[in-house]
């Protein structure tokens, strides 16, 4: 990246508690009200940094609509998507 530019929508670590099926139950302590969508991105497997993200678009109990994903290493991130 050149000086003066910055990446948009950079994923940020987020605290998510998930159920047995892997779906989020709460995000940063706020309960998940509804699961709107769920999708999977598996790409760049041919590079040293393969991408595997399981995305969830959620409606939280406080009314917010958030998108989080679980990375291939099992870490949770929040992303504006």
């Amino acid at each position, binding site marked *: 990246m050149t000086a003066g530019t910055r990446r948009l929508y950079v994923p940020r670590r987020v605290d998510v508690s998930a159920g047995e099926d892997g779906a989020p139950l709460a995000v940063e302590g706020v309960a998940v009200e509804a699961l709107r969508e769920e999708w999977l991105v598996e790409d760049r497997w*041919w590079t040293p940094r393969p991408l595997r993200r399981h995305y969830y678009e959620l409606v939280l109990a406080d009314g917010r609509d958030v998108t989080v994903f679980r990375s291939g290493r099992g870490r949770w991130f929040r992303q504006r998507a």
Partner: protein
Amino acid sequence: MMEGAPYIELHAHSAFSFLDGASTPLELASAAAELGYPALALTDHDGTWGSMEFAQVCQGLGLRAITGAELTVETAPGRRAHLTLLVESGAGYRNLCRLLTHAHAHTRDNTARSAEQPWVPLERVEEHAGGLVCLSGCAGDGVLAGAWEAGEWRRGADLARRLLAAFGREGFRVELQRPYWRRDRARNRRLAGLAERLGVPCVATGNVHSHARSRAPLQDALVAVRLGATLETSEPQRRGNSSSVLASPRAMAARFAEHPDAVAETLRLADRLRFDLTEGLGYRYPGSENPAADAELAAVCRARLAERYAASRRRREAEGRLERELVTISHLGLSGFFLLHRDLLELAREVAREVRGAESARAVLPPGRGRGSSVSSIVCYLTGLSHVDPVEAELFPGRFLNEEATSMPDIDLDFPRDIREKLIPRVHERYGADRSALVAAFPTYRPRGAVRDLGKALALPPQEIDRVAKTVGFHEGANEIERCAIAAIGARRAAAPGWRALFGLCGEAMGLPRHASQHPGGMVISTLPLLDVCPVVPAAMEGRQIVQWDKDSCADAGFLKIDLLGLGMLSAVERCVEEVGRARGERLDLSRIPLDDAETYESIRAAETTGVFQIESRAQMQMLPRTRPRNLDDLTVQVALVRPGPIQGGAIHPYIERRKRLREDPSFEIPYEHPLLKPVLEETLGTIVFQEQVIEVAMELAGFSSSEAEGLRRAMSRKRSEAELEKHHERFLAGARSRGVPPRVARRVWEQIQGFSGFGFPKAHSAAFGLLAYQSAWLRIHYAPEFLCSLLNEQPMGFYPPDALVHEAQRRGVRLAPPDVNRSHVLCHVESPRHPRRRDGNPRISWEIGPSAGEAELRGGLVVRIGLGYVKGVREEEMESLVEERERAGYRGIADLASRSGAGRDGLERLAWAGALDNLVATTRRRAGKSPISSLSDPSAKRREALWETGVAATGARHAEGTQMALPLETPGAPSLQPLGEWGEAIADYRSTGMTLGAHPMALMRGGLEPGLLRSTDLERIADGASVEVAGMVVARQRPDTAKGIVFMLIEDERGTVNLIVPPPVYDRFRAEVRAAPLVRARGRLERREGTTNVLVAELGELEEPEPAPRTPPDVSRRRERRDGHELRRRAVAELRAVAPAGHSFGRRGR
């Protein structure tokens, strides 16, 4: 209703979706069976290419195959979408075939006849809805889901209503998919809502593209290959994740937890879809139901027998054989089958008359000839389907025709290429364009193609891909790609992630079909329109069409396949006969040539067989001086000997050894494994050489019935199965024991049979090929220039590239001349002093058999003139018009040529580079008042001047309507130009024609090479076992499967050729050089055995121009001159390396 599995997959793609599916039908079916599916649908894109194979393998696995396809439909002008169609009944299958045929009908309408995307208008689908179940299409491109994705929901709903009206409530379903894309839930909710409003059920499908997760990356890469893009740039079109892998029924039910009815609907639908492709499709071949066929065939054969055997002492024997064959044929209901083949041959006769012309020297030749086991049948001989008398040749039709046969016999017919080209469209005309078609073939991924395709998808550097692909070779095993890559680009680069990914992908891709093509000559003919039994699509060649099944699927469907094959050597022999007529005025009848010509057999025994059919390979040449064939029977064995079957069965060495012993001692007793084998193995000296000998041995030694023995042969060949073979093994040992054969003997013979399981020729086939081998050897000896000329005109064919053919002929004294615009034709031809070129091209022809009386005088004057068509990159029509115009009046100079010939500047420059304008330079020089060409110190100056003049001459302008001639303005004289020199000329020759008639590159290099580097002829005086070093251009490389990793190379220097044997450890060390270097030097041990000479290589490297000797002359200017000379040669060698013809590579196939 299906019990057990909660879900059945109704939408799956195999690799027959061509670059949009990463598993074979067998892999999909096996995985489905393992996962507990009771049924599975195959729905490849716009085709049923893999459906029969799928149905057959499913049957074997106890899985029910559901036939279907994903059809591309045009819903509005220019707007395409997918529908999933599943077959419920025979009527539905016929409708699917018609729809697929229609979808492909326009795909070759462009001028290049390249394949375009198939599609069919929605209206056509509406007309052919009967018997089909229609699902609304996939999540991305489906008729409904696609409309929703595009924000055209109202339009999508309208299309759904049309489909509902066409297919009815029982035949239309809204398809839900869950590819784990971002808007799955929203899309499926919307689709389910529409289904409810329409009153039709939803059905869940998985849109499967591979059978296992390990194939998901390959699916991604194949999409990139299909789009001609890289993985990076094809991201929007790829599936995005691995959810299109076949999952278990339970996992799929869980995936659609929100739509349980859609999951249950898969079971209800699968239960209804009972159409079975393995049951009869109603196919019949013409004549199959003719009640008079038996009588007609018998009448034809008896009449012909009376003529053919009128004076034969074996007439009674022939009559007995004919009657027995007729009874068998009648019993099998195959009389119509033979009459159909005879009808085809009559058609071929008509075509041959038209192609050859009544006056041609070829007119006396039959239109084609049989090959394969059918040559053993007297019915085939008498109906003209074979040219070998099976009574005289002692051929027996057991393998071809027996009472217990369960499948249609194979009759393969060879034709010269030009006749075959015309015959195929004529077959379409005769039997109806809708009732005849070629059989499909599916080129599969092999290592070299996989490296190129997948390497590009991975965006690996093109130069590296090229180097690795060249090193891998066409037939290398997939597991060797990594080692080849390390040899080509180094271990460090080969360890890069992209290359690691490539090695994995190549391993997965091996053997998968890449695209559809046409079988070399297999045709199916039907009494019904073919498109009611299999979709028919246009072929790349105009006037041809292909069914969507390959030969195995056609055989499984019970189709009669007729092989009309093009055989290069047959064409070459015919061309040769014609050329002899033109050059010498002799009319040869090959059926009347002496079959015991001493000179011909002498050359065969001396392995002087370059260009001769079947016995020109390095392996054959090694064997000929040891087997020493003396007649056609010997050649019949010889042709069959160098095949994987006899090699692996251990027949070669005993056969050679026993022939030698018999030569030395005619009373030598052949040691048979058991006396029972003597009658069946006598002609091959106790070894198994012919395919039918496997059958005969099993029958004689172990008491197999003919059908049991045929079953054994089949188990060993195409459909080889370990379990089935083991059953035959046990039966063989038990049968042999009951006949009193000791167990150890039975075991040894079984080992030979098992070893034979690789490919072998039937004797009848060998007899047909042996005769052609003799005929070609005879022509090579007695009509050398014409034979060479015909080989050059039929390329590509055979073992040797044109450059090697030319050099070998030159060493035998055949004279050749380079292309010349004032003398050459488009093809190569023989210039004759006796028959100067005539305007009508038809010299007076006399009837003479064999070499003519004044041959010596004539032979000396015959010259093979290289044709203008040999110049790379010239346009054929330009050369044709150039020759036509020259026939009116010869060209008087380059300006005249440029103005009249119709050739463009590019074409003229290519001709000039090839030396075809050299002789026009003389005219121009004379006009310009310059000294004559003969006064030039270096004749290569002509080519330089020709190039200069071509550059300044005004050429005609090409338009769509034709070429507008330019004014013949004289070109100004060329300035003083540096000649090309010998090196420059050789490089220009190779670059422009792929061959040089001038100095051999090794002769040019020789001065700079160490004196210790031997020439090919030097090896004759070197002792066996001595250390030698040789160098040359690589003519051929061979790595046969049967040779345990040994590579055989043939290199050529200015005096001849040298055989190199590269053992596996040496190959591993010098892999890149062995695979790809055009010029090599090799050090090793000389091995001489029974007339053959080889170098067993210990070290091998690229041949380089050596550094100048350290002893430098004192004079500075001479030192510089020497250094400059060295530098020039070094550059020349490097350039030669780039343009030298690639040696032919042969060897391993498949995985």
